[in-house]
């Protein structure tokens, strides 16, 4: 019985081994009770496990070898993210790797040399401080200012700001240009106030009150655009992993839960629910992995990232809703895995633009589509 369908890529033996090893490590060290315990934990992630995944090379896998990284394909990172979604691994893995990639692509040589080794070793925990009170993923209304090597402003919905070591802060400089400031988190001018979110993930309001800036990435526009599209692709992988697990879990439950003298999976209404979940999951995985492959091949992928998120965010939400429906009352118990997946989808669908935001990006790309009449 095949619940896990092929996304249509031939994974190498090495990639299959990577998947198995991530699944094994997280399965052993981060079962759902640990995930649940992290809700009330100040850091919000198992610190010991963070060190372990650094040692396993997952944190530095994308960074160039000269900076202590593994220089591996994005597809490898995609596999890790897929498995992390599956396990609901509660940690700023995605954010740290994402910010590392932004520095790798847009930082100056000294900046790469300064931060990337720390990312790979697990010492640095990076996060993105972009949105402000308006809650939008744009650079035109940014209020945060860089002035004389110091940054002033207030950032909202900053993931894991409580435990981060560095923030990548979107700001405007004196000339009104968009820049990304790299700011050490632990200093007098930076405070983080946790928000209480539905998903129990860590998001904070960060106040920058003349915080000292360590480094400035000058081409902020390009850096943030990359953060947006690459982060979106990473989220699609995480969501695809979550959907896969919920599909499997719900299928298993439907086979074991007996009502009216037979497993509820015998009822066609339930079968159709599961079939719909399979369709949504399968398409999400195919889209997410093909996007990952495109990134790995170094192709342009901004539009594909938005297309994927506009689909996957909605599809994964449908999978969660339907999973709940099939589980009945038991799935609503707050300790139940179903409820945990349902809630933890929210930060993924919301941060870096929701489905609607990405749909609007697709809309903006339309003038270039079908520019001539179809053949």
């Amino acid at each position: 019985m095949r619940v896990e369908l092929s996304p249509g890529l031939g994974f190498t033996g090495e990639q299959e081994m990577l998947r198995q090893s991530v699944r094994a490590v997280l399965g052993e060290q981060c079962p759902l009770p640990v995930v649940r315990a992290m809700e009330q934990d100040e850091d919000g992630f198992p610190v010991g496990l963070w060190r372990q995944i650094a040692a396993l090379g997952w944190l530095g896998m994308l960074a160039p070898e000269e900076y202590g990284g593994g220089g591996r394909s994005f597809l490898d990172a995609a596999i890790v993210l897929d498995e992390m979604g599956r396990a609901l691994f509660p940690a700023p893995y995605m954010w740290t790797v994402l910010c590392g990639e932004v520095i790798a692509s847009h930082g100056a040589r000294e900046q790469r040399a300064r931060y990337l080794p720390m990312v790979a070793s697990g010492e640095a925990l990076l996060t993105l401080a972009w949105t402000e009170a308006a809650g939008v993923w744009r650079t035109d209304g940014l209020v945060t200012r860089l002035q004389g090597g110091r940054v002033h402003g207030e950032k909202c919905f900053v993931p894991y700001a409580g435990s981060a070591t560095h923030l990548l802060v979107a700001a405007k400089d004196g000339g009104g240009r968009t820049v990304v400031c790299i700011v050490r988190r632990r200093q007098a001018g930076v405070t983080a106030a946790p928000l209480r979110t539905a998903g129990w993930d860590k998001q904070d309001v960060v106040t920058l009150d003349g915080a000292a800036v360590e480094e400035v990435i000058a081409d902020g526009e390009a850096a943030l655009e990359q953060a947006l599209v690459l982060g979106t692709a990473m989220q699609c992988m995480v969501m695809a992993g979550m959907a896969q697990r919920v599909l499997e879990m719900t299928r298993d439950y439907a086979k074991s839960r007996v009502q009216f003298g037979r497993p509820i999976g015998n009822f066609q209404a339930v079968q159709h629910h599961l079939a719909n979940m399979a369709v949504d999951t399968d398409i999400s995985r195919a889209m997410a992995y093909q996007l990952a492959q495109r990134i790995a091949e170094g192709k342009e992928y901004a539009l594909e990232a938005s297309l994927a998120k506009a689909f996957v965010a909605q599809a994964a939400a449908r999978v969660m809703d339907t999973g709940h429906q099939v589980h009945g009352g038991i799935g609503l118990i707050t300790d139940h895995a179903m409820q945990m997946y349902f809630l933890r989808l929210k930060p993924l669908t919301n941060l870096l633009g929701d489905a609607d935001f990405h749909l609007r990006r697709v809309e903006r790309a339309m003038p270039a589509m079908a520019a001539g009449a179809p053949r």
Partner: protein
Amino acid sequence: MGYLLDYPVAPELQAFQEEVREFLRAHLTREVVEERQSGEWGNGLGRHGRRFLREMGKRGWLGLTWPAEYGGLGKTVMHRFILAEEMEYADAPQLGTGPSIVGPCLMLYGSDGQKREFLPGIARGEIAFALGYTEPEAGSDLASLQLAAREDGDEYVLRGQKIFNTETHVADYVWLAARTDTQAPKHKGISLFIVDAHSRGLSVQPIYTAGDHRTNIVFYDDVRVPRRNLLGEPNKGWYYLATALDLERFFPVSGVIRQLELIIWHAKQPRPGGGSPLIEDALVRRRLAELVVQAQAVRSISYRMAWLLGQGSVPNIEASILKLYLREFAQRVGRAGVEIMGLYGQLRPSSALAPLGGEVEKYHRASPVLTISGGSSEIQRNIIATRGLELPR
């Protein structure tokens, strides 16, 4: 009160509607609402909720449609409809299991002794019941319940386990379905009992569900119930339960309509960071407009339901259509609300930045239950297809 709730009210009922609103303004205090929203006290059986229900009892509203001999006011179904809608709109404690299930059942099938012992107390809001139906292995298929009631002299001895019996920890009595005949076909071996919630051998273990609602696992470990607390004849419980259910088909729609009003109101407010109101976005407006259309749809079938009940008919299929459409609509409203609010839509009520105090976030978080409890959407569709359209089972 917003436009969306202005359902047609006959002139002779307008005074009653105004009286209910007046009552709610006076008695639905902050304490009552907060206690209910805490999720710890079921639908309103905490200290404040009970005081509120007793106030309702003083006006005769807990037995609004009951005959005077049972402590009721003998009013029409339309009165009951108005009361239910107004209370739901205000997020008041619900009337609960006593007035809506136990009362009607006792009036039909109870002994004179039971009527005397319980009906006046229910009507006055002094006796509260928890609903004791669901078991770990008996949810949608309630008739397969196993909790055993064994006859022993003048008593029954209860042994077994219930789950999701929400108000057992705060109620005075449990309205319990149990198996009295293990040999008979499953529908023919069930009996209904009134069980003192403080009986020896009855123990309660809390479980918390989506939206922070407390419910319970309840263990019955040789709980003794006097025979006089059996409803009607033994083994006819399923029949009693089903007929009583038909009489009390109120699914107030004003709660979700209030949510929609809140969302629309929110969309008209200035946004944090100085952005223009959400409603100025054509896509947001379109999405809300679609929900307003659906709100009108749901109101019309709810109103039709009240009318049919008022005619004395037993609107089975209409009830299934209403339950199904209403609850799925409510989920759509919750989802649209949190999605329109974007990043802010993830904030829990305990977050100072949460729009509308986090009410819509919580509504959405709790909303999966709506299509599961009280007969799931799948079960409603089965009923509509087989009983309504007479398709083969």
